[in-house]
């Protein structure tokens, strides 16, 4: 799985970090660090996170199209 976050758009709402804590981590209150190639086992969580982002800043490419 491949992930990139448009951090210019991201406003640090942390929705992703709640829903996929192994792939998205808040560093402090607002800075988001994400894993660019999370494990396939996290697919479900990562898709939840991407859908939940209020500013739709998360782009995910999964092996099979979702």
């Amino acid at each position, binding site marked *: 799985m491949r992930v990139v976050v448009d951090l210019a758009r991201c406003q640090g709402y942390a929705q992703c970090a709640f829903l996929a804590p192994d792939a998205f981590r*808040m*560093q402090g209150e607002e800075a988001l660090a994400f894993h660019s190639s999370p494990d396939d086992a996290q697919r479900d969580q990562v898709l939840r996170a991407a859908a*939940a982002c*209020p500013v739709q800043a998360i782009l995910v490419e999964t092996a099979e199209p979702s």
Partner: protein
Amino acid sequence: MTVAQAPSTLQRILDYSSRADPYPLYAELRGRPVARQEDGGYVVSTYREISTLLHDPHLSSDAHSLEDPGPALAEFGDPPAFIGLDPPRHDRLRRMAMRHFGPPHSPTLIDDMRPDLTAIVTGLIENLAGRDQIDVVDDFAYPFPVTVICHLLGVPREDEPRFHRWVEAIVALLDFDPAKDPQERLREGVQARKDLRHYLAELLRSRRGRPPGDDLLSRLASDEGPDGRMTDEEIVSTANLLLIAGHETTVNLITNGVLTLLRHPEVLERLRREPEMIIRTVEELLRYEPPVHIIPWRAAYSDLTVAGVTIPKGSRITLMLASGNRDPAYFRDPDRFDPDRRDNRHLGFGSGIHLCFGAPLARLETQIALNGLVRHLKNPRLVADPPPYRQSAVLRGPRHLLVRQG
């Protein structure tokens, strides 16, 4: 001589008769994105303007910023919880509460709740098996989030009948029920707020002196983080807010979800085959049939300008979230329920610094609840369409949703 004034669009929206379908009236409102009302307040109904205002630091959530606060002061109680405060006080209290709810301090708390949430849903669904007719609200959509928020906060589930009445009276404060004398409503609401505060304060006292449990109330009571410690007053206000917010909103999302799926059987069928589609479906529900239709008031902290209209300091500003969600200038084909919609930046949870605190929990709850129901209901049919709605135009949702199955 007095001339009877034609009711304004907003008044017609607030009228109970438009509860089942307020959307045509929202479209009418959007003809004037920022509309001054008879009483000097402003109603904002288009997506860009709502979103702009929610990111405008001159917009205040504190009733003291209103020229004429009226009952608004009572809505959030005193001292207000962070939903009724501005930075820096809002940010500090929200940060302190967040320590026990999510990242960065408790990053896995919500994700770890998935098995428990699934178990509660499974239990509720087992009770529905074999029944010809169910009420989605009373049998499912209400008990589920209430159980969850009680557990999370550390409020005994068996006290629910007691605080349920208070919560209803407090939520009615947000309302514009013309059938009810506003003074009486205010009095009842304020009393209920007192009672609920008293109840929570007692609970908090009983937590003290005991080894801290895992629930939020105990953790708030014993925690000492970088921002210090919440006062007992602040803890009670916060618990109050979470109990109400975790109570009266998710029920509507789940119920609106069942209703919308039954109105769109093709989506329901797809969901049965592709459970993962629930993720996008819930986002689309938050746009298409959101539980919170209106932010009833915000205040202009100083003069501010939006869409060319200057709103004077102290004015009351009403934000029509559900109308913004149907704004054709922002969403393509907005009146279509389309779970495949891309780039769905809906306003279902608000936006900006007050963006819903509980959103990740509400999402997970609704995803699990709807997928559970969809899998287990056999040939479900609506008994009445539209169903009877609750009074509230702000927290809008069906009072009952009767469904036949089998």
